[in-house]
Structure formats: C-alpha cells, structure tokens
C-alpha cells in the first residue's frame, strides 16, 4: 500500500477519536473502578429495599467494599433477597449488619455494612440476617402522624382524669 501524507493525519484523527473514547470510559465512567478483583457472594434479606439497584455500592465506613449483584423477591418470606459481591480482600465478622443508606438528601442509595463482633468471618454463600430497611418517607410520615394522634389523644385523656 502506498504511503501518503494523509496517512499521518488520518492516523492522528483516529488516535484523537480513540483517546476521546478512552477519556469518556476512564474519566467519566470510571472503567477502572469496575474492579476485576475477586469477590465472594453474600445474601441478605431486607423488608424493603427502597430504590436499591444492581451495581449499587456496598460501603463500609464510606469505603466501597463491594457491589450489589442481584435483587430478587422471595415469595416464601415476602422479603427482598439481595446478593452482594464483596471483595475478597475485605472480610467481615459473621454478625455484621447491613443498612440501606442515602448519600446526601437527593443522593443515591447504598448499602452500609457495619462490622459485628463475631470471631468467625463471613463466607461465600452466607446470609446476613440483621438488616435495616430503606427509609420510606410515606411510612415515616404515617408513623409521625400516628404518634401525634396518640399523643394528642393521651393528653386529652389525662386532662379528663384530672
């Protein structure tokens, strides 16, 4: 194939395009954080997962230690069954507890894992039972109103007695 001056420019153009793609993949989508590290699967049951999605981060002390692999509904216990892929280099006690948290007011939800005190560590395939569900605003408001009503009813009852 004959070489010509446009070879250089076309090569440069293709390089720039490839560099732009690489930039998008690495800088904006953070491909490197798609860790290719080994993980082990742990299941957890939640009463309510709120807006949790697969690929959500699992954090301990704010550090990402794994990701949510899959979410299914268990129609035996009527709970959500969440499979977590935790990185092998981190190990947690067997009685660690999970919480569904929100980063910031409008931020994404993530799972916070709090270490327990058990001497044995979580193994692949284990199930974490001590979980705290996502906060559902409607339930919270409902509870608040109920408490308020109970309070109001209680105080009026007291005044009647006196």
């Amino acid at each position, binding site marked *: 194939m004959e070489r010509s001056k446009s070879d250089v420019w076309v090569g440069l153009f293709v390089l720039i395009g490839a560099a732009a793609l690489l930039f998008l993949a690495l800088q*904006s989508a953070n491909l490197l954080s798609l860790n290719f590290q080994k993980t082990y699967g742990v299941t957890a049951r939640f009463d309510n997962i709120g807006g949790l999605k697969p690929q959500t981060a699992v954090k301990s002390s704010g550090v990402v230690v794994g990701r949510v692999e899959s979410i299914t509904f268990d129609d035996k216990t009527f709970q959500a069954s969440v499979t977590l892929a935790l990185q092998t280099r981190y190990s947690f006690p067997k009685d660690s507890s999970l919480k569904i948290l929100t980063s910031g007011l409008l931020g994404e939800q993530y799972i916070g894992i709090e270490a327990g005190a058990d001497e044995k560590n979580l193994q692949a395939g284990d199930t974490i039972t001590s979980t705290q569900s996502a906060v559902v605003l409607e339930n919270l408001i409902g509870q608040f109103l109920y408490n308020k009503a109970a309070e109001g009813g209680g105080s009026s009852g007291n005044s009647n007695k006196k």
Partner: protein
Amino acid sequence: MSFWKPADVGFAVRGKLVDIGFAARLLARLVRHARFSFRRLSLVRDQVHFLGNYSLAIIAVSGLFVGFVLALQGYYTLQRYGSADALGLLVALSLVRELGPVVAALLFAGRAGTSLTAEIGLMKAGEQLSAMEMMAVDPVQRILAPRFWGGVIAMPLLAAVFSAVGVIGGWAVGVLMLGLDPGAFWGQMQGGVDVWRDVGNGVIKSVVFGVTVTFVALLQGYRAQPTPEGVSRATTRTVVVASLAVLGLDFVLTALMFSI
C-alpha cells in the same frame, strides 16, 4: 386547488416504492462492497481524511460550546435544588447519551454530507460516473463504497471527540468558572455514568447515525438530476433528510436502549 385523482395517488405511491427499492438496493451494494473497500484501504483512508479530519475543528469547537452551555444551564437548574454537585453527572450523561451522537451527526450532515452529495452529484453531471461504467469500473464500488465506509468510520470518532470535549467544557465552566468542587464534579460523574449502558450505547448510536448520514448523502448525490439545479436541490435534501432521519432514529434508539 384541485383534488387528487386516485390515479395520481397511485402514481405517487409507486414512485415512492421505486425510490425505496432503489435506496435499499444501493445500501445492499455498499455493504457488499465492504470487502473491496477494505482491501484498497487507501481509498477509505482518503475519505476518512476528507470527512473526518476536516470536520474535526467544527465538531470540537461545537462540543466545547455545548459543554459550556450545558454546564451553565444545568447549574442554574440544579442550584435550585441544592444539588449543584451533580452538574458533572448531568453534563456527562446528556453528552454521552444524546447530544454527543445527535449534534455530531447533525454537524456531520452539514459539514461532510453536503460535500459528499455535491461531489457525487457533480461527478454524475459531468458524466464521470457514466465514463467509469464505460470502462467497466463499477462507480458504486470505486467511488461510493469507500466514501460510505469512510463516513461510517469517521462518525463515531467525531461523536466521541464531541462528547469528550463537551465534558471538558462542562468542567471548565463548572469548576473553573462557577467554583464547584472538582472532586464532587468528577466523582458524581464517575458514580453515575456506566461504561456499557451509557458510553457504549452512545457509540452504537453514533455508528447508526454515521451509516444514516453517509448513506443519505450518497443516495441523494447518486440520484441527483445531473444539472446544476439538481445538484443544489440534492444537497439541500441531504441536510433535511439526514437531519430528520437522525432525530427520528434517535428517538427510536433511545426508546429501545434506555426504556428498560
């Protein structure tokens, strides 16, 4: 104003059918000649040079300004909800998913598509295509196919450049001008943009748009009336048809990709 007679409607429909058939056959021939084009890579290379390199400046500058404007407008809206930190995510997602492929394709239609149509149309008007046929050289194979594949290669690269430069433009306005925290800007972006679902689908879109725009440009040039007026009309039609096709296809692709 006279009403259409049924015969006129039938005639028009038949004309459209012929057009569609012709277009489909041309597309099939272009795809079939891929092997030839890539065996004579120098032809495709010249077209990538002509379509890609020369469009680089307009694509990069437009991308930069679209990034600027997105950041300014996004900041204005996000600030009301106290989540200006998500600006990076907003800019990156809008660029990678939609604006990058679509605006790059519209610019590509205006910058490269028109020149393709005019070139082919003038070749036809100058009877160069007929002369090639006389010499038993297939003009679709020798002239149209390398241009087609050159455009298909150049378009995704241009769209990627557009998005990347736009993200940098968003960063310039968001971080340098409006004083957002760079950690939050990039962090939110990296947390929210998925490589395959967002960047990958953007690339697929840009490939589809590359095929669409280049094909429309070649088709309009190839079936232009071989007169100065015909070529000018074909060039106009290229911009109109290619832009509408890109916008329509974008809706369909977005619905397919992101609805789930």
